[in-house]
């Protein structure tokens, strides 16, 4: 909601933005506080809205103590961060965008805390990753911000994906995605064979989010974000989502050896590693980032212990850490803001000039170091106490010792932060006289610092009930005896703690030497490795993809053919394709001769493939044989169509051939030709065999029997093929003429602009190498076509009218019409014929489709389905019986479209070169204008051209 508001108020002032955001946080917090009482007394508030019932994904929220703790944390720190951000961000920064991202994040985070459906939790989980991506990359001009954002998204998002798998599996194992149900079915889950997978996947998700070793490296780079973001996301809240998740699922996942080993080890390692690295960083935020990693490790380790007390410690530490770390980040931000640097080596003695800031810093750092009387001390004590009781794989000392070392290291870096920054020689970075910032910047960390202090002094009052209840919620049982206090007596933890602090001070004293030696160590930069790995793999993939997807039609086709062959081959190999038992028909000598002609012509087409003109001649032969074959095999309609189409196709090809370059060299190498030959051979044999197998099978009585029987009685025609086309399957024909019409339109669209631009220039420059006869319109030919035109039209009419009963029909008639007109073009040239033509092709196509559709619609008027035909035998005086069928009207539509499309194709192609030649002067003008305008002039002139013609 806040996001929407902020978007709406983008233009408003900063104060308004901040106000909206703060109000949201505060409002949420208020709601939470109202609920807090009942929740802590054991009544869990729930909300449930159905969302995707089939998936088991509901918008179900609950507010148990753990959720309360977390949501409270998120909202309260969020509120402070918003206030802080108001002071932090410069006047020119787009606060609205920033705050809307922040609110998006806050909402998602609260969502994680409150979800009581694991799938819903996943939704929020990934949303936090996204929001974090946007926030880290907020200063988009900085390279490290962009890279940091991408890396964070990659790691946490990727972990989120693992989490998805884990959660869905978890749901599957538990039989529900409802969290309460899952939590109650721990035994079921842990007994499941999927348990290890679930555990690992969920842990990967949690660890990536919480920056656990070895997924930690994104976190320091996320510090490229504005400091409020770092404070909020990368210390107080988002990174704790992983910890929260572990706590949330603790009842169902914890308690096994797997859990203990993995979680404890990873936590421990991270704690140590982070602390160690933090000590030797010089960037304030880097120090804090690594310390965060370390502290997160601590919490994870505690959760891994698997005991209630450890959980309590973890939860208390969450609180503490949130308080002091957010305070520290804000502090670092203040220092940065005021001095212009975050390099600890360039800073020092700030206590004198920025007393308030310094006080704050020292206080928070002390909490981090685990010094009494701050909250950090208590939680650290609890941690050490717990680790003292933990034996790792039989090694009783391992965990406590390492934990102590880690505590020592963290004390050391905390002290270094506090001391090096505020005391000693004055070094003020880029600014000569920095000073304490205004209240807006100072107040939020101050509040946090106070809380950190208060948590130490009055732990039971402030946090006791909450921690206890939350712990109970985590462990699913009654809270263990919880006693939060600074003084626990002289227990091992105290000694460990003391030792740690002592060594830490010692270490700090020795720091320069140690730092020098560490600096000499090779330090693998995770970011570089990450970037390089990514870049390398992208390059490799790109090369691979380039190879696979090379623009090569030959390859596309080869793959297609091979795939089809392989698939067909598989079927034939597994099940066999045998010839059937139908008696074959003996072949007459004529058939054999025709067959031979076809085979020879096909071979000839291949043999002369680059002498294209000859190839075309042989294609003609094939077409002729096809027509003969159709005649012989009882298909007169097909023969007619074949003859007519053949002529038009040849004309078309010759027109195109004229504009193509002369005898080209061979393109492909021998090996390629052999390969293609093999594919072709397999394809040929395969298809031939399939045809053979089908033809030798006895035919079944199929739907065509019906067509035969109903052709005359129901369709009103004796030519069953034609009746099928215009009646039984008229819908096919409608589609078919649409195809032709579209082809015509597309051809027009292709050729209309061809006279311009590059193509036009090429056309104008085109000169054939051949010498041509000067005679353009041979007299005899011209005269013959004059006579043929009316004759051909008459024949076309005849074929059209009788098509319903005898071979023929609209399509063939249309081709005859077209050929008749094309003959005029051939004989007398384009211009001569074009002025005598009465109708434009566009109109023909449009009218044809409309007539055909209208015929079909006509039947709707009479309440019959689309395309229902009707016919009648009309008796006219004198003329005799006369048949009228609506199907003929449909056929008329067919004919119009065909004539239109054919004429469009050939006529356009025929005069494209001439048009290009005429275009020449116009092009000169056009060249001066810019591209946009040229576009429109092209359109304009083309339009004009057409209008002049029509």
């Amino acid at each position, binding site marked *: 909601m806040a996001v929407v508001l902020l978007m709406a108020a983008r233009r408003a002032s900063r104060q308004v933005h901040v106000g909206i955001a703060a109000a949201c946080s505060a409002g949420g917090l208020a709601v939470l506080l109202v609920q807090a009482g009942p929740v802590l007394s054991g009544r869990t508030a729930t909300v449930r809205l159905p969302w995707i019932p089939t998936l088991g994904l509901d918008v179900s929220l609950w507010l148990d103590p753990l959720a309360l703790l977390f949501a409270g944390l998120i909202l309260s720190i969020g509120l402070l961060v918003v206030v802080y951000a108001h002071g932090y961000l410069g006047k020119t920064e787009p606060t609205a965008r920033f705050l809307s991202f922040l609110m998006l994040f806050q909402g998602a985070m609260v969502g994680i805390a409150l979800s009581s459906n694991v799938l819903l939790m996943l939704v929020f989980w990934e949303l936090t990753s996204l929001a974090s991506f946007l926030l880290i990359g907020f200063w988009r001009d900085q390279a490290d911000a962009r890279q940091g954002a991408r890396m964070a998204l990659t790691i946490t998002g990727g972990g989120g994906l693992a989490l998805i798998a884990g959660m869905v599996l978890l749901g599957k194992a538990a039989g529900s995605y409802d969290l309460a149900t899952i939590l109650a079915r721990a035994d079921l889950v842990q007994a499941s064979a999927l348990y290890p997978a679930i555990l690992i996947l969920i842990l990967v998700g949690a660890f990536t989010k919480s920056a656990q070793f070895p997924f930690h490296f994104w976190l320091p780079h996320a510090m490229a974000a504005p400091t409020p973001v770092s404070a909020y996301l990368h210390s107080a809240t988002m990174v704790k989502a992983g910890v929260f998740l572990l706590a949330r699922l603790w009842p169902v996942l914890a308690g096994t050896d797997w859990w203990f080993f993995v979680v404890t080890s990873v936590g421990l390692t991270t704690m140590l590693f982070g602390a160690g690295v933090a000590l030797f960083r010089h960037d304030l935020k880097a120090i804090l980032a690594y310390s965060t990693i370390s502290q997160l490790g601590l919490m994870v380790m505690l959760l891994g212990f698997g005991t209630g007390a450890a959980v309590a410690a973890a939860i208390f530490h969450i609180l503490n850490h949130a308080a002091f770390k957010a305070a520290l980040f804000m502090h670092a931000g203040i220092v940065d803001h005021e001095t212009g640097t975050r390099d600890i080596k360039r800073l020092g003695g700030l206590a004198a000039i920025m007393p308030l800031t310094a006080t704050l810093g020292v206080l928070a750092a002390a909490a981090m170091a685990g010094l009494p009387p701050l909250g950090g001390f208590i939680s650290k004590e609890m941690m050490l106490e717990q680790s003292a009781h933990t034996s790792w794989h039989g090694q009783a000392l391992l965990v406590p010792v390492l934990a102590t070392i880690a505590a020592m290291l963290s004390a050391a870096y905390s002290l270094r932060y506090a001391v090096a920054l505020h005391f000693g020689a004055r070094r003020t970075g880029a600014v000569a006289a920095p000073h304490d910032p205004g209240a807006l910047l100072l107040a939020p960390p101050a509040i946090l610092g106070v809380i950190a202090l208060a948590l130490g002094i009055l732990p039971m009052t402030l946090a006791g009930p909450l921690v206890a209840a939350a712990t109970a919620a985590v462990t699913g049982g009654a809270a263990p005896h919880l006693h939060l206090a600074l003084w626990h007596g002289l227990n091992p933890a105290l000694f460990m703690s003391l030792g740690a602090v002592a060594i830490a001070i010692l270490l700090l004293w020795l720091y320069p030497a140690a730092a020098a030696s560490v600096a000499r160590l090779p330090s693998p930069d995770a970011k570089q490795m990450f970037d390089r790995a990514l870049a390398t793999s992208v390059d490799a993939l790109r090369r691979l993809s380039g190879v696979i997807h090379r623009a090569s039609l030959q390859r596309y086709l080869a793959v297609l053919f091979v795939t089809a062959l392989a698939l067909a081959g598989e079927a034939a190999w597994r099940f066999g394709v045998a010839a059937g038992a139908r008696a074959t028909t003996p072949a007459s000598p004529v058939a054999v001769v025709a067959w031979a002609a076809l085979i020879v012509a096909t071979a000839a087409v291949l043999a002369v493939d680059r002498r294209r003109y000859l190839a075309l001649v042989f294609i003609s032969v094939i077409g002729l044989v096809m027509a003969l074959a159709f005649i012989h095999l009882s298909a007169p309609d097909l023969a007619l169509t074949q003859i007519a189409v053949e002529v038009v196709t040849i004309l078309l090809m010759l027109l195109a051939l004229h504009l193509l370059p002369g005898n080209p060299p061979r393109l492909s190498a021998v090996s390629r030709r052999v390969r293609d030959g093999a594919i072709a051979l397999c394809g040929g044999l395969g298809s031939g065999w399939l045809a053979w197998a089908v033809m030798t099978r006895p035919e079944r009585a199929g739907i065509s029997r019906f067509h035969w029987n109903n052709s005359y009685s129901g369709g009103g025609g004796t030519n069953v093929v034609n009746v099928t086309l215009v009646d039984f399957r008229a819908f096919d024909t409608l589609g078919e003429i649409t195809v032709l019409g579209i082809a015509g339109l597309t051809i027009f669209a292709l050729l209309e602009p061809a006279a311009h631009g590059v193509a036009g220039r090429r056309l104008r420059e085109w000169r054939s190498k051949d010498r041509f006869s000067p005679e353009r319109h041979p007299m005899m030919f011209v005269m013959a076509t004059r006579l043929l035109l*009316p004759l051909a039209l008459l024949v076309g009419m005849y074929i059209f009218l009788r098509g319903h009963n005898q071979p023929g029909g609209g399509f063939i008639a249309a081709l005859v019409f077209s050929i008749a007109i094309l003959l005029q073009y051939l004989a007398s040239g384009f211009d001569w014929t074009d002025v005598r033509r009465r109708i434009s092709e566009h109109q023909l196509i449009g009218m044809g489709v409309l007539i055909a559709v209208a015929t079909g619609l006509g039947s709707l008027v009479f309440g019959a389905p689309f395309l229902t035909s009707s016919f009648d035998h009309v008796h006219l005086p004198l003329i005799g019986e006369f048949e009228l069928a609506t199907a003929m009207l449909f056929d008329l539509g067919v004919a119009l479209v065909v004539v239109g499309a054919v004429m469009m194709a050939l006529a356009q192609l025929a005069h494209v070169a001439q048009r290009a030649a005429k275009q020449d002067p116009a092009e000169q003008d056009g060249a001066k204008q810019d591209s946009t305008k040229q576009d429109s002039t092209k359109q304009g002139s083309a339009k004009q051209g057409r209008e002049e013609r029509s």
Partner: protein
Amino acid sequence: MKNLLPHPGLSAMLLIVWLLMANSITVGGLVLGAVFALVLPKFTQPFWPDRPRMRFGRPFLGYLAIVLFDIVVANFQVAWLILFRRNRDLRARWLVVPIDLTTPEAITMLAGTISLTPGTVSSDVSADGRFLLVHGLDVADEVAEVARIKSRYETRLQRIFA
């Protein structure tokens, strides 16, 4: 009348062709054919701008008969040539036929006739339209052959295209 029936000859021809195609003479076919015979010439009129007047009477029929007869005879002659004349004895010649016909229609008809009778193929017209290039498969006497063409065909055509 002229407007309604711009080319009576063509119309008649179309009607005949229509009846032939329909392969039967019925009233319905006749009417339909007549309609087409009237409509199509009008529709195609622009494609044949200045058609010469032709006489379809006796001269035309006589010409037709002569041509058909010549075709049959020539067929046998040429068949003989193809079957039994050796290639090197073939007296293939170019004939240049001067023509007095003036309309392209008439010239075309002459050339077509020449081509249709086996043994001679009209190959080209001169650029000024006054000579016809004819290829003869076996010509004993060029002058006589040219004269035969002119007298047998051209004079008759001149009468048709008066």
